[in-house]
């Protein structure tokens, strides 16, 4: 379970940032009073144009960022007060996730398992299961730098799942991937849902959202524009398809700068 209440995140702007953003404001509000709940066994999708605050929200959930105000609860743990405890429950994967090119998948997975405090025996068991599932046995001892994008993606998935997290956060996980490689992620999200895990993911691709999500939220410029079930979203649709409806909602809120 993920629950965020009245989440706000401000960044202090440096002189250079003010110049770049062409603003005289001293702070930038990335997330402005967002609240939502993601339930176990369900996939929650966070939608929004570029710069909407999706990545900042997900980084707060994964405890990389501290919120300026508001509360974050991850699997029953106050993630603001006890970030290290909360991290034990989280698996985090982004589209821009990098891997250590000079290590082998085996070394990398064992390293992350050790960081999560998993015993060697348990690591070996989980590794065996995940390698089988992801078909990773053939390249487990090759240097990651020499692997294909698809293989690397599998290593990333394995790294995310090695500690069997209760909550999984995906930040545009299929961004930049071809259809075949992206399929691994889609399968992973479906499997997590089946296993009763709490899944939150941000995406630009409406077909993925349609395929996977149970609940969704639309954010823009840090504010929440919509938060309900996918079914409710579809029922309330005033346009022909999901993409058009998403654009309509954003436009209706008098916001013009977006792209999907």
């Amino acid at each position, binding site marked *: 379970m993920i629950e965020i209440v009245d989440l706000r995140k401000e*960044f202090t702007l440096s002189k250079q940032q003010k110049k770049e953003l062409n603003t005289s404001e001293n702070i930038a509000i990335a997330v402005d009073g967002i609240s939502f709940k993601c339930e176990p066994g369900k996939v929650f999708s966070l939608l929004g144009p570029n710069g909407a605050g999706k990545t900042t929200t997900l*980084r707060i959930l*994964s*405890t*990389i*960022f*501290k919120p300026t105000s508001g509360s974050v609860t991850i699997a029953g743990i106050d993630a603001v007060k006890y970030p*290290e*405890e909360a*991290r*034990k429950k*989280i698996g*985090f994967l*982004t589209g*821009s*996730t*990098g*891997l*250590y*090119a*000079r*290590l082998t998948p085996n*070394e990398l997975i064992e*390293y*992350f398992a*050790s*960081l*999560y*405090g998993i015993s060697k025996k348990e690591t070996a068991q989980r590794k065996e299961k995940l390698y089988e599932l992801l078909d990773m046995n053939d390249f487990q001892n090759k240097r990651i730098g020499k692997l294909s994008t698809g293989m690397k993606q599998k290593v990333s998935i394995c*790294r995310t799942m090695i500690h069997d997290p209760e909550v999984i956060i995906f930040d545009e996980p299929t961004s930049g991937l071809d259809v075949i490689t992206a399929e691994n992620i889609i399968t992973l999200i479906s499997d997590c849902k089946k296993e009763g895990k709490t899944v939150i993911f941000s995406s630009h691709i409406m077909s993925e959202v349609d395929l996977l999500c149970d609940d969704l939220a639309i954010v823009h410029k840090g504010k929440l524009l919509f938060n309900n079930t996918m079914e409710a979203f579809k029922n309330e649709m005033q346009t022909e398809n999901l993409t058009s409806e998403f654009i309509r909602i954003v436009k209706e809120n008098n916001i013009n700068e977006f792209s999907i």
Partner: protein
Amino acid sequence: MIFNIFKKELKDTLRDKRTIMMMIVIPVLIFPVIMNLFVSVSHSFQKEAATKAIKIGVVGTKNDFFSTKLEQLPSFLGKKEILYYSDSSHLAKDLQKDSIQIGLLQQGSTEISKEIFNQLNVNVLYNATELGMKERAEEYIEYIEREEKSKRLDLLQIDEQKITPIKSTYTNIASSKEMIGKLAGGILPYIFIAFGFIGCMYPAIDLFTGEKERGTLETLLTTPVSRLKILIGKMGVVVLSGLLASLSALAGLYLSIEVFQLVEDPELLTVIHSILSPTFILVLFSLSLPLTIFFAGVMIPIAIYAKSFKEAQSIITPLNIVMVLPAMVGFFPGIELNTTTACIPVVNVVLATKDLIAGTVSPGLLILSFGVMLLLAGIAVLISYKRFDNETNVV
């Protein structure tokens, strides 16, 4: 947990060819290459000096008093060839063209009369860019003068002792070890410090900016490990790399002396052996440890702040000069370790090492230097942590 991070970062670093080059290969090779070059050049100079005859131009004839004496100079004063000129302008031209290396102009009378004890004026022309020529001319003239003076004293029946009120002798009380320590002792800590810095540089950039650039740091920060532990684990590898680079330079020195036998002078060799004792190396590393932590602590905040490998490199590379330049004070014999210099980072390590080599180190100043470096290392770690804990710097 810190050890797990350290182990992984070390493995990753040791697989980076660039780091291995800067950390081990170049430092190991630097001493053998420099010493080999030095020995070869010095041998070739010695050989050249022994075989090459210098050409001396004299305005006058072969039968002049001074020319005769010049021709009679013993061979141990060096090979020479004497050319005679009728005028000084030709001689000056040849000196300009390096056809001759020394020009001697006799002014006034070219003869010395034993009866009237007259004085011969000799003007020595030389090119100051040709090293050693002035000294060679002085040596020749002094030899001739000494001989003639002795003859005159005999003629005058004067005991030389009676016209020499003071006879002075100079005794050097400094041991060879002390001489080497004070005069050349600055080179060892300089190289040690320079490689310590360079050794830290690539891992610092790679483990912080590199990770940020490659998108691996964000993932690492989502693990249940505190940022302080991640920082210490990574910093440990940066410091170890710096120390390894310094150690490799020391290994290179050992190879030069013991394996390649590039030091031929037995006296110098004995002194070097007595300098490079296990205690000296231990104290040197004890001083280098806080210094390397300080270096790492200076580099890491920059590496954390920088957005790309290139940006970090462009800031840290010039910093190399700022940090290593103070180490050059070791080359100046007059600067000593005192309470003021012991408080100046880098300078204190160099001067303390120099005193250690010379065997004249004061334990109090050594402890003060160590304490200052330890304090600075602590501050540097704290600044690094503040930077690393700043969320906008790490993703």
